[in-house]
């Protein structure tokens, strides 16, 4: 029985387990890395999907993120929280990948859809509702800049306040607010256009 399994069976707090796993990883023991991947997997994938809008691309970045985490784990400050560090690595890798795709697209190689004009939403319970919701979501999100999608995710899905978003994206508070305002305004206009009404 590993130390993690022992602590799990002892019913310890996941935060305490996380600290133990991080200490193990820093010491070069990698057998409990799966615990961290499980702990942050759903949120991290959702975040990457928000930025890239592509499932396969998100999975690639997700994988690269954990490889990078293991490469840099000794540089991680254990007195700080792990998740901002993890999400920052993922964010940098995602934008690097999008930048690369954009260049490939400009040079005429690779995908013609670098900004993710189609979104791969997960199927919901009711198939028809799922398809309709997916179409609506993809239409609304299609064409939105990845940075705008990201800020919507951080504000409404992750429920961060403006200060946290600014710290996460390393942007001034004013830029965060204006970016979110721009994202919401574009959403509103898109929804209105879906209703067949041209206004401004």
């Amino acid at each position: 029985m590993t130390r993690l399994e022992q602590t799990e069976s002892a019913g310890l707090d996941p935060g305490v387990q996380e600290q133990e796993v991080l200490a193990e990883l820093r010491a070069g023991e990698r057998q409990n890395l799966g615990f961290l991947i499980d702990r942050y997997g759903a949120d991290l994938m959702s975040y990457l999907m928000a930025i890239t809008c592509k499932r396969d691309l998100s999975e690639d970045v997700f994988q690269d993120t954990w490889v990078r985490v293991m490469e840099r784990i000794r540089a991680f400050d254990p007195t700080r929280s792990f998740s901002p560090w993890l999400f920052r690595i993922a964010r940098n890798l995602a934008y690097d990948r999008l930048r690369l795709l954009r260049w490939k697209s400009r040079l005429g190689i690779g995908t013609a859809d670098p900004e993710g004009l189609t979104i791969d939403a997960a199927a919901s319970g009711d198939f028809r509702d799922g398809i309709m919701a997916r179409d609506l979501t993809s239409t609304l999100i299609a064409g939105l800049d990845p940075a705008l999608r990201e800020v919507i995710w951080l504000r409404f899905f992750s429920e961060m306040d403006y200060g946290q978003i600014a710290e996460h994206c390393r942007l001034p508070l004013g830029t965060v607010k204006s970016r979110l305002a721009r994202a919401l305004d574009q959403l509103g206009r898109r929804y209105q256009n879906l209703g067949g009404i041209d206004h401004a």
Partner: protein
Amino acid sequence: MHEVRDACHDSRNALLSQALSESRDLRTPPAIEEHLQNCEACRLYAAGLAAAPSLFPGVSQYSPSLKVRCLNAVAAADSTHDIRLGLLMAPPAALSLLAMFLAQVYFLHLMLSKVFASSPLLWVVSFAAAGTAGAAVGGLCLALLLRRHAQDNRLREVSHG
């Protein structure tokens, strides 16, 4: 396409401010409510703002197979790192092996020259003896490394399978 009226402009600004507000006050001012009842475009605009929190699927896109894929990638990156480290260590290791070999040849020649009369043939014999011993030890180490590699491969196949 008709022009944006002042009332629409004002109501959109108010709706946007409300959506951006951190207080999460959901009450819409009566004047805006009244405008929304009469203006379909602004009603749709408001619906678009309200859709923001539900834009991203609540269903998890994460799966256990993705976890396995990550663990394999981390393991593969580790072995790549080992190979890089090995390549870096190869030149100094080869130099030290050569120095040891030459020292062996020299001391063997020194011992043999005390027993036999010194001749160029003694250098050849010393060289051959040291070379044979070195090849035997090297071959043994290589065999052990190959055995270890085969065991690792078997373990990897089991963990992937």
